[in-house]
């Protein structure tokens, strides 16, 4: 539980730094959308954030070794899920970071509704896949 609390604290500090430093919401769906529009100069921060995100991985490996990571190898599930995550976060304007961390931290009703919705659908999806044996 301490790892989870510490990791969550780091995520909160990162979002706080982005907000207090440059006035931007640390939402990864927003970062992805911005990367498609990077020719508009005011979105450059997203590229720096993305670079930092990638850089964190070797830093972590140096300090703590290779992190655990297990995922389905079913290509159909991977592609369908990727499409759904890409479409859903664009249509719903946010994901676990933008709605889940920043939106809830701002006490935004919209983000609370979005968070409850994606949590419930995520839980039901795992349940249904378990029943189907996927």
């Amino acid at each position, binding site marked *: 539980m301490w790892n989870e*609390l510490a990791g969550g604290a780091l995520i909160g500090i990162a979002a706080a730094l982005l907000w207090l430093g440059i006035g931007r919401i640390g939402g990864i769906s927003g970062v992805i959308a911005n990367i498609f529009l990077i020719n508009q100069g005011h979105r450059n921060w997203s590229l720096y954030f993305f670079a930092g995100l*990638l850089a964190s991985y070797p830093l972590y490996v140096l300090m703590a070794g290779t992190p655990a990571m297990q995922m389905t190898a079913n290509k159909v599930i991977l592609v369908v899920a990727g499409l759904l995550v890409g479409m859903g976060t664009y249509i719903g304007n946010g994901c*676990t970071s933008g709605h889940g961390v920043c939106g809830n931290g701002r006490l935004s009703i919209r983000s609370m509704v979005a968070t409850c919705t994606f949590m419930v659908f995520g839980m039901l999806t795992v349940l249904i896949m378990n029943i189907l044996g996927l």
Partner: protein
Amino acid sequence: MNHKVLKAVTPLLAGIIFGLGLLVSGMNNPAKVRGFLDIFGDWQPALMAVMVAAIAIFAVAYALSNRMKQPWFHSIFHRPSLTVLDARLLIGAALFGIGWGMVGLCPGPALLDIMTGQVDVLLFVAALLVGNRIAHYSVGPAK
């Protein structure tokens, strides 16, 4: 350092800290995330602590910002302007939730896990980017 440099260094540093947070907490691990979502089965509730800690810290920062005229290195706070609860929000969040439950990757961990070098992660991220563009060209940005 002048503001131009800090405007680049701040998001870079935020990205590093954000990624370390995902890795320290195990949010980057799809198996762990799916265990957290498996409330009707072998539920592993520990990831709840990630959300609680992150939200609490950001809430304090946001409250602080209400007393500031502007961010440290930028002219304005880009406050989200949408407040409407509509079908678009619910449908988007539901689609995202289904995709998230299927694999256990949300966008941040998906981008971070590119660094594992696994082809399956690249496949997921490619599909995610295609999904983003499909929604962009069919539904368009929210107003």
